[in-house]
């Protein structure tokens, strides 16, 4: 088994940071601190934004002039340098994953393989639609090529796309479809992501649905589910941030996610320090205890995600071609996503109980809302985007 997947399999909940520094020495020190945290951790190397978009010349210039990058430029540092960063740090007990965000991941995949690493993440849809102008067709071609040459562990980002106002049936379907795409291109160890959104019961149902679909569509693949702590506006108070993070850890264990990507008390304000990351990892590990609350209730997320997945996979035996066709027809349509290849006819809102609901479904094969709701206006959108932060910060104010 892949070392990354094996390490995740050994704990109830493995905790993982986002972390990337441009200096090899500082990156190594950060990884060591994570390794030595009092928690079952795996390591992360997050690449910088120039490397992410393939502008390696700009990354090189920034290193030369000492401007400072917002991550580790894994393509620009040579393989020997990265091996030295990892030497005596990365091993079977502490595997390291590279996180990058590229619609064209080929250079990053080659660099991490040359450095002896074998775990990374992304996806042809999830690293194209939200962040890039690159045509989806190009991203699918680049990801196909990168996956064909890759022999390691690959995590989908599809369960996190615009994930703060996306009804979970669609996120679950996208995450599953990217895993099916990876499998089609020969990857045999995957994780399926999902992000914490606005309601814990709805999120627990979504993760449970994702696991059911993975069991059905990935029979010959080693897989687990990874949860990302809330990706939207984070509470501004340290206590609010800790409460939200602890709820994420509880959600992960409750619903059977085996790994969690944490956020820190600094999230609303700046890039966290290594110490803040270590504290967040240790807090999450402590909060992730076996669940004793009510069982997960099925309100229809699995049925909705299944309809979407089946409608897409019917289009072609090649999952990449099926994804392209599905977006062209609007069978997949991510609300509030402005990419030219996204139909943009679907809209969502948060209901009075904090559940994410469809306002309009466009051409997607999901049940249209029974009652029409007023579409979100500018004020309603701001309220929805700030809802989670506000509720945790005001809980803190009530606690006094």
């Amino acid at each position, binding site marked *: 088994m892949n070392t990354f997947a094996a390490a995740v399999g050994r704990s109830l909940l493995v905790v993982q940071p986002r972390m990337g520094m441009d200096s090899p020495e500082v990156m190594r020190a950060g990884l060591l601190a994570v390794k030595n945290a009092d928690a079952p951790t795996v390591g992360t190397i997050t690449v910088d934004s120039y490397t992410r978009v393939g502008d390696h010349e700009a990354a090189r210039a920034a290193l030369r002039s000492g401007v400072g990058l917002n991550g580790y430029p894994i393509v620009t540092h040579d393989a020997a340098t990265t091996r030295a960063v990892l030497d005596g740090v990365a091993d079977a007990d502490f595997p390291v994953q590279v996180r990058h965000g590229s619609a064209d991941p080929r250079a990053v995949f080659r660099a991490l393989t040359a450095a002896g690493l074998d775990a990374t993440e992304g996806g042809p849809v999830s690293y194209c639609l939200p962040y890039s102008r690159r045509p989806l067709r190009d991203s699918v071609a680049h990801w196909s090529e990168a996956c064909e040459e890759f022999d390691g562990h690959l995590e989908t980002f599809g369960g996190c796309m615009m994930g703060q106002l996306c009804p979970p049936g669609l996120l679950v379907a996208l995450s599953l479809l990217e895993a099916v795409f990876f499998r089609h291109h020969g990857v045999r160890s995957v994780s399926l992501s999902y992000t914490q959104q606005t309601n814990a019961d709805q999120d627990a149902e979504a993760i449970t649905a994702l696991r059911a679909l993975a069991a059905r569509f990935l029979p010959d693949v080693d897989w687990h589910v990874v949860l990302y702590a809330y990706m939207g506006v984070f509470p501004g108070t340290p206590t609010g941030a800790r409460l939200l993070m602890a709820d994420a850890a509880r959600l992960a264990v409750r619903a059977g996610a085996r790994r969690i990507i944490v956020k820190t008390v600094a999230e609303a304000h700046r890039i966290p320090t290594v110490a803040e990351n270590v504290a967040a990892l240790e807090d999450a590990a402590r909060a992730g205890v076996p669940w004793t609350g009510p069982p997960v209730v099925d309100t229809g997320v699995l049925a909705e995600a299944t309809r979407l997945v089946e409608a897409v996979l019917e289009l072609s035996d090649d999952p990449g071609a099926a994804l392209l066709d599905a977006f062209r027809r609007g069978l997949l349509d991510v609300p509030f996503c402005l990419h*030219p290849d996204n139909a943009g006819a679907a809209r969502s809102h948060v209901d009075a109980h904090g559940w994410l609901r469809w306002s309009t479904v466009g051409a997607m094969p999901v049940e249209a809302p029974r009652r029409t709701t007023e579409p979100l206006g500018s004020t309603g959108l701001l309220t929805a985007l700030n809802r989670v932060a506000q509720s945790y910060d005001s809980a803190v104010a009530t606690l006094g």
Partner: protein
Amino acid sequence: MNIVLSSTASDSHTWNLVYLHLLLEEAGHRVVNLGACVPPDLLARSCVDAPPDLVVLSTVNGHGHHDGPRSLAAVRAERVLDHVPVVIGGKLGTTGHEPERADALRAAGFTDVFDDAGAVSRFTAFLSSLGSLRLAGSAS
């Protein structure tokens, strides 16, 4: 008014664009939203065929001081666009509101700059005054 709404070349954020799109539509304007990471030449090309009444650049990644003038230069390089008002707003630098740099953007030719605490209400007021100027212009 017909308004072109756009990000800058290096900025992949989009919630700001989604928000402004709704805000402009609610004020009765027609919006073409170009989305994230718009290179200067694409912005100019998107405006040439049907010159808009206003171009709005919104950016929050901290590179606005650098990227904004490049987008503006591409728009101004087109003769049919040399009188179209172009404004910029958002989080333009990495250290919060910087009045000198906002002044530098005005000096570079931006019609106005919206990066302070009251940016949204000032922007709304700017839209109303621009709209009434246009009405007055078309009546004369």
